């Protein structure tokens, strides 16, 4: 029996739109993806995550990790760049998220917000409706405010994450999870 045969993974078409997921991606068997979704090379979606593209499309770049229980839902088309980490439990409703961005655990980004390249949104923060976080910013709090530039140390986090998670995703994929 091939591992694929008993996977619980749920990827659904909706309104004639089927998620287009690059073959190198790892999508957990316990994730739920529906609708007009595009996911680039070497991105991973972890258990419990929900990506729901029914009102509008969601485009995800390369080497993006959507961690456990994160929710991506678009009221209007959403685009996420490359090397982005969407932390555990994070809720992303943004119009645009740049590349090399970290959305901290349990953070929330509301409708029509835009997060530039090389940003970090701290854990638990709420990026309010329509807020534009300029590139290279460290945004913190409820509501989120830009506290300053991302530090040199923080800049290394997305690289370190990619190094570790690309292998981890591959391993899960090989084990049929």
């Amino acid at each position, binding site marked *: 029996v091939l591992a694929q045969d*008993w996977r619980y993974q*749920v990827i659904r078409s*909706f309104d004639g739109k089927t998620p287009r997921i690059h073959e190198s991606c790892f999508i957990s068997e316990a994730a739920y993806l529906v609708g007009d979704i595009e996911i680039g090379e070497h991105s991973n979606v972890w258990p419990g995550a929900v990506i729901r593209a*029914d009102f509008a499309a969601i485009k995800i770049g390369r080497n993006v990790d959507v961690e456990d229980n994160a*929710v991506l839902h678009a009221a209007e088309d959403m685009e996420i760049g490359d090397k982005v980490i969407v932390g555990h*439990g994070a809720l992303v409703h943004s119009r645009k998220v740049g590349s090399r961005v970290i959305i901290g655990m349990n953070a929330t980004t509301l409708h029509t917000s835009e997060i530039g390249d090389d940003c970090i949104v701290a854990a638990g923060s*709420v990026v309010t409706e329509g807020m534009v976080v300029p590139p290279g910013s460290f945004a913190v709090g*409820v509501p989120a405010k830009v506290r300053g530039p991302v530090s040199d140390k923080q800049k290394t986090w997305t690289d370190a994450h990619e190094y570790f998670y690309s292998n981890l995703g591959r391993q899960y994929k090989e084990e049929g999870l």
Partner: protein
Amino acid sequence: MRTSISIRILGGSTRKRGCSDVGAEQQGLEVIRSANGKVPNIAESAFVSEAAYVVGDVEIGERSSVWPGAVIRADIASIRIGVNVVVEDKCSLHADAAMDIGDNVLLGHGAVLRDCRVGSRVLIGMNATALKHSEIGDNCIIGAGAVIGDGQKIPSGSVAVGVPARIVGPVGAQLEGTEDGDWEDYPNLAQRYRQAGL
């Protein structure tokens, strides 16, 4: 009732469980479970996603919808949900004491409600939390990420935000157009999901 799920057991085998009724909807993964002899009572026109989990003494009114990853767990006390209520993805509702949610309410993604009472025409922001014995009146807006403390009461017509939640003013025009539960066209979306067997 759709009660079929394929569960992957550690060790690599699969089995079906809870599968009783036969029908077009049987292939759905949706999980609706009884607990303590109480079976969820879900209105015919309500939509419960195949990836949601509803258990115990739950009542869900007409045209309400429950989205993927949401958990409604009424194993200790009852949870009553009115009409035109949207329970978005990854919400958690769990009751130690009877929990009541009115009509035309939107619970944003990831909201957590524990033993709280919620009025009608209420918007609860994403990732907000309402703790034990809290009460939210009618026509309220709770900001995203807000935490309503134990026993805290939010009077009708208030906007409450922050951690811990504090009232920042009265509701203005924000709730206009929600009398019929038409949150972002959710009733229509739910019907399309139902038709797609999701």
